[in-house]
């Protein structure tokens, strides 16, 4: 079609959720986006649209982003109804214009879930995730008190499995994808990462109970095994970890009924 080799640029129409602030009414507004290079990232396209809005004296579209390479978990767009857009296993910032067709209408919304209130436009408040972590997402290890790192060997299989879970970037796509706004995949990833490792055993029961209870208190819904979460996860974290979480939770609840928490826990292996 075009005589220029690599730069078949396209145009799309954006339908963007605009909301002036928390608790303010929101609405979709359409913006044209022209001359987009297929190699442009989706967020770079928004940068260009925002600069055009600025020059016209209008307020740019607020959207969250930082690393722009799929690791910080800040970007959080629902693109055409899908958290993080059409591609599997990537974050919004790793979505490229080459995934869209010339003339397409592209709808952009924030991650929607009651525990993630909108701050402005496409930016939501995901501090609920921090609160779940604060409740128990850690292994107690005072600086300076650790034994030699090779003192406890950990099988490669366990280390790899822990790492599979630990990859979670805390973006919240799992919550946005779930019709119940469940945070089970997020919690399962953390609980599994720490619970698989020998260092994590001492606090294992306490951790899972505290994290799950906090999750419930913050208004996240229950899991009904639809697995939309792992399909939307930019790191493709497996929903198998949810079964592991359920197992851990039941075992810990059971043990806590019969056993008073000891006054002092042992140091564990770590």
């Amino acid at each position, binding site marked *: 079609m075009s005589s220029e080799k690599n730069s078949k640029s396209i145009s799309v129409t954006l339908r963007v959720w605009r909301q002036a*602030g928390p608790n303010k009414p929101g609405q979709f507004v359409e913006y044209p986006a022209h001359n987009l290079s297929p*190699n*442009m*990232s989706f*967020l*770079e396209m928004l*940068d*260009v649209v925002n*600069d055009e*809005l*600025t*020059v016209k*004296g*209008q307020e*740019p579209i*607020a959207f*969250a*982003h*930082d*690393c*722009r*390479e799929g*690791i*910080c*978990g*800040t970007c959080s767009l629902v693109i055409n109804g899908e958290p993080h857009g059409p591609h599997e296993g*990537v974050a919004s910032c*790793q979505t*490229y214009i*080459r995934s869209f067709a010339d003339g397409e209408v592209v709808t952009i919304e924030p991650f929607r879930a009651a525990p993630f209130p909108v*701050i*402005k436009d496409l930016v939501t*408040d*995901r*501090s609920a*995730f*921090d609160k779940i972590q*604060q409740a128990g*997402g*850690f*292994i107690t*290890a*005072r*600086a*300076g*008190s650790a034994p030699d*790192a*090779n003192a406890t*060997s*950990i*099988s*490669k299989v366990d*280390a790899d499995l822990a*790492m599979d879970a*630990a*990859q979670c*970037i805390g973006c919240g796509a799992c919550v946005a994808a779930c019709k119940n706004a469940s945070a089970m995949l997020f919690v399962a990833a953390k609980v599994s990462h*720490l619970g698989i490792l020998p*260092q994590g055993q001492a606090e294992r029961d306490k951790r899972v109970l505290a994290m799950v209870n906090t999750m419930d208190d913050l208004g996240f819904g229950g899991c009904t095994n639809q697995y939309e979460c792992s399909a939307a996860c930019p790191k493709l974290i497996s929903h198998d970890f949810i079964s592991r979480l359920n197992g851990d939770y039941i075992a810990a609840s059971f043990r806590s009924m019969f056993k008073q928490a000891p006054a002092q826990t042992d140091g564990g292996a*770590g």
Partner: protein
Amino acid sequence: MAQLDPKIPSGPLAEKWRKHKMDIKLVNPANKRKYEIIVVGAGLAGSSAAATLGELGYKVKNFVFHDSPRRAHSIAAQGGINAAKNYQNDGDSVHRLFYDTIKGGDYRAREANIHRLAEVSVNIIDQCVAQGVPFAREYGGLLANRSFGGAQVSRTFYARGQTGQQLLLGAYSALSRMVGSGAVELNTHSEMLDLVVVDGHAKGIIVRDLTTGVITAHSADAVILATGGYGNVFNLSTYARGSNTTAIWRAYKKGACFANPSYAQIHPTCIPVSGDYQSKLTLMSESLRNDGRIWVPKNKEDCGKPPASIPEADRDYYLERMYPAFGNLCPRDIASRAAKRVCDEGRGVGETGLGVYLDFADAIKRLGEAGVRERYGNLFDIYHEITNENAYKVPMRIFPAVHYTMGGLWVDYNLMSNLPGLFVLGEANFSDHGANRLGASALMQGLADGYFVIPYTVGDYLAGQKPNSRPSVNSHEFVKAIADVESSVARFLSNKGKEPVSYYHKRLGKILWQHCGMARNKAGLEQGIKEIAQLREEFWANVKVPGSADTLNQSLEQAGRVADFLELGELMCRDALSREESCGCHFREEYQHPDGECKRDDENFSHVAAWEYQGEGKTPIRNVEKLNYEFTKMSVRNYK
């Protein structure tokens, strides 16, 4: 003139830190909770510091501009973290890590600091494993290692290609535990916009809540800045978009000296620029250089051909040719300049001619595609995502990009700046990497500072301050600082300009890349200073910042950060101009050996340049801290 006493303890190198820990003052446990410490930043340096100080019993207030501590730019580090564990029994030791670091920095850092860093490196790995960081393991269950640029031993610990993520999540979990217990107060979406100095001591900060626009004052007994690096001054870099210089720049304007601002590392293995819209350059971890081979065609005419069609005999594996001992693993500054040189010769590849090949064909022959995938799978995925190319089949194209800033606020051995009470950790300080940082050493430094150095050294300062003596936020220093911040916000919003902030940021980046990038010279730097001053004027006359002050306003955030970059850029040029030698990343074309290598001038420039602010429009003072090499012989860096 500022007083720059590095406070290096006396005694033999390997004894200094132990001795210093014995000699410094302590705060007794019952008094610790009477001291409040502000920690700005929660990357590796900030979160490890805040968690550890909270654990010790101090009252800690932590501020980050991000929406969560876990988002700090440290999360993006890929390749690994060094430690002198010698688990591979390949001849590593604290002394060797010390020596590699000081040599890698081209003899422009302090011996005592680096030795301490190498000593505590081993404790960092222990600490991280205890927290549950899932480092890579061998089949036998022990920790795995790999080698990294500039080292001939395997001392780098890693967690797939996501080492920074896992280390940060470890530190974040420690911090979260302290927040949950009430020992640390966490303030997210909170950007520090000024440092408050009372009677010559740093005693607080001014913060703007980025979601509500509310500006507040916070006083403390000590202030710790762990706010990261300023490489985004170049606009295009491997940094997260939000990384900025504001915290340390405003501290500089309040009297803290800025050391070696022009030392900016340009990383050899990044994905090349593709268009004007580009917002960031993605790093391809340097660990790829362990197995990938870098080359360009020998003949210019071959540059446009498909790489597979170029026979071995017509390929120039230039790093292996020029540096046979280190080959593809030579330090970053050297690899970057070599890439620039071959591209300047017209032998670069890709659409723009600004690229070289990083080829895995040999590695795939040796390890199989699955073996390569096991080591680098996620990096190949990232590459594919961005370029739409399959690097298992065609070589990657890479080009150097701005990656790290060795410069930063000047600190002494205690990590305290020349302003008493102001401590600076991690990439925000200047201290340990001299004129070039070795791969996998930034994560090490950030965690060393936060877990193992500041918990001791902050006590030495606080022990000299009366408990509960911090000034009230109603004192006039705080009131004035708030008014200043408010008026600068108002100035942006009322500016009747036409151009968005990004327009100026892009132009600043181009000026710096051209004049203060991989190769510098006197005329270019002088030109750069002029152009930046002009650009700054244009910016203030014509920048447009829409929206209001009382909701989330990303244009306003960006405007403040770019305004600071526009001042810092000039200081970088000034610093590069006044350093009339080449060392590490700082390559002045006038000072080179016949083979194109850096020509240091140890007689005249074996020092740290620490710039002192003199007020708007005035030339800052260049203070000097002499570097004394008592234990190492300064030699010409040789990687051949």
